[in-house]
């Protein structure tokens, strides 16, 4: 079900899946993100943590090309988002916490539209769309308009939309919001196998257990700045705490006592 990215091994010859260089963004003069630099390798699951208003969503929206940074540079798989948007966006899937759907379309029609936007071959993408809906248990709802879907169903359909164009980098903002236990497990399994297949995932979450169990590296944002970054072990060593929750609270309080 989950697509594999053929050239998945990270070597020095491969560009990073995502590179942020000195990104700054202000809203009405107030800094939302400040001099943020980040490097995520291909085939990595990176969790971006932070309290409310830390700048996580702003960062993700800048990566997806939905917000323009005031300064700095963003590259996706070696392509500059500002200079080569088409090449940078083609391998990217962005899943915000509020699903990007159309109330009056049925699931297959929605996926047809997404496939059209990404210029996919119709026959292959139709097969893929059907497989995704079956896998996400939405095939039985194929004749219903999206407007009647529950929050979890919408989230799953948006996920199908993100996967139908076989991205190499997935950016997910609170991907488990609104999902029931079964669907949440499905999404977590999906992310793990996506990364195992060479894809890259960057996600934000308030459920620290998710980051603890899934992420290979964790970055902690506070007031728009990256205050800590590393594997779970590295963060534990640095703060001297055991659980990620303790580490997170320790580091964020340290940054803003």
């Amino acid at each position, binding site marked *: 079900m989950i697509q594999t990215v053929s050239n998945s091994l990270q070597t020095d010859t491969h560009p990073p899946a995502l590179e942020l260089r000195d990104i700054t963004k202000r809203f009405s003069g107030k800094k939302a993100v400040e001099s943020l630099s980040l490097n995520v390798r291909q085939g990595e699951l990176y969790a971006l943590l932070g309290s409310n208003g830390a700048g996580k969503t702003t960062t993700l*929206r800048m990566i*997806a*090309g*939905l*917000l*323009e940074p005031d300064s700095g540079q963003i590259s996706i798989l070696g392509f500059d988002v500002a200079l080569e*948007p*088409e*090449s940078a*966006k*083609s391998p*990217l899937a*962005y899943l*915000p916490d*509020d*699903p*990007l*759907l*159309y*109330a*009056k*379309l*049925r699931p*297959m*029609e929605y996926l*047809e*539209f*997404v*496939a*059209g*936007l*990404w*210029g*996919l*071959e*119709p*026959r292959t*993408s*139709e097969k893929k*769309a059907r497989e995704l809906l079956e896998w996400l248990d939405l095939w039985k709802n194929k*004749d*219903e*308009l*999206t*407007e*009647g*879907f529950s929050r979890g169903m*919408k989230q799953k359909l*948006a996920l199908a*939309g993100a996967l139908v164009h076989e991205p190499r980098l997935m950016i997910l903002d609170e991907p488990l919001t609104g999902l029931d236990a079964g669907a949440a497990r499905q999404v977590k399994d999906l992310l793990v196998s996506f990364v195992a297949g060479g894809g890259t995932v960057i996600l934000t979450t308030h459920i620290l257990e998710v980051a603890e169990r899934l992420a290979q590296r964790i970055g902690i944002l506070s007031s728009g700045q990256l205050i800590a970054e590393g594997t779970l072990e590295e963060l534990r060593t640095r703060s001297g705490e055991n659980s990620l929750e303790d580490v997170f609270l320790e580091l964020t309080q340290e940054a803003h006592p």
Partner: protein
Amino acid sequence: MKTGSLLWLIRWQLRLGWRDATAKTKPWVWIVLGLLFVLGIPLLLYIPLRDLSGRISSLNGLEPDVGLLLGASGGLIFLLTLMLSSAVVGTLRSLFERGDLDLLLSSPLKSKTIFAARALGVVVSQFLGTATFIVPIAILGFLLGFWRLLGVIPTLVSLSLLASSLGILLTLGLVRVLGVGRARTVAQIFSAVVGALFFLIFQAQNILGRGALSELGAGLNSFVNSIRENPNFGASSALWYPARSLFLEPLPTVLFLGLSSLIFAWTVNFTRRSFLRGVQNEVKGDRRTRTSSKIVHFSGGLFSSLYRKEWRSILRDPLLISQTLLQLLYLVPAFFVFLRPRGDGATLSSGLLALSLNAALIFISGTLVSNLARIAISAEDAPDLLRMSPRGETRLNTLKMWAIVLPIFALFALFYGLLVWQGLFLAFGLLAFLGATLTSAALELWFPRPTPRADLLKRGAQNGRFWLGLAHFLTLAGWVGALYGLEFRSPWSLAGLALGLGIPLIAFLSSGRRRGKTSPRAGASRSARA
């Protein structure tokens, strides 16, 4: 004021309503505009008419006869019908647009109080909607000495109460039978049909022909005579009280006001349970929408995907259709003209008829394209999806524009076929039609005003669109002017052409400047409204 009382709730509603109204326009602008309209216009007209005040004030002593009372009653019924159509839409908005309704209904406030406050809101909006245009006439009458015309104000209050009562009863009946979603569509259609009635009455002569119109006139005359001769309908009959209240006669005014207030109070008391049931069923009833079971085969190609997505979304939204495609109703009179053999007392010469029909097609197609392009471009459900796709928002919006314009061209080709068949085709008309539709769509393309589709028909969705609306109107007027000018070989055609092309050109240039200042990608986040 007691917390939780009807007056307390009304005060809150008024405060919120006022903040809504003044969200984008400064309060003093509304106050000045209101004063200018209600007092300024009468004062302005008073100056040239003041010499007539002696003759006009003598009208105070006039004892209305049955003919006058019948005419006034007819006018009141027509006004009531107009108010009713807007009351149905207003009731649906006021009672079923959730807003703070969930908060109110989950509070310990009595449902009767909530319903009464909302229903009074409908009355106030009916009164203000009509009074704005009619009260200045009453004030002018008063200034000229015809003080009895002030009776218009209590009569309007009575009519607002009656129209709101009927609107609430009709709406709740519709909601009970059809559910909120479909009731909203029926209400919009009703409203559009009533609006079209104005046009149909105006066009009566062309639709019916002079012969049929004379027959209708004769029929009306004999009806009026039969009323005059009927002793039950004498000038003192209670049947004429509403009409007499127009002339501020004390007893009719008090009775009409009292009766309509009683009807309103009874309506509120009688329908509050239906209101609660309607609100509770709204969520349940509108949850799942199953469409026909048809296997979707992916079409491939960007334009095809966009085309299918846009038209599926529009055609599956009956409320949007009722707001946009119903404009085609205004073409009904044109059909009558086509179907009726010419020479039957037609009032217009062939040349003028051709010009009028071509002008109507330009205005209707331009407005239709503008509304549809607005839905497709400004009211995009998932703008972020388009922005993050590799295709680029500008290119996608341009393709959307064509996805809207091309089917409209196909639809109007039918009308132009009829014009050719009837010998009423004008080459300049076709050129002006192409110019008007393309520039109307382009204005939406260059000046998108992002509005979530789910909010498109809600109150306040038109906020900030005044200048764009004016630009649309002037552009269409320019193309119609160009057509008239060209047909009459008048230099004014150049002025029309300058408007029709100049306004979109200015829009294009200024949109380029805006693009330079802000990145098209830097938009406010809008959530999907699925």
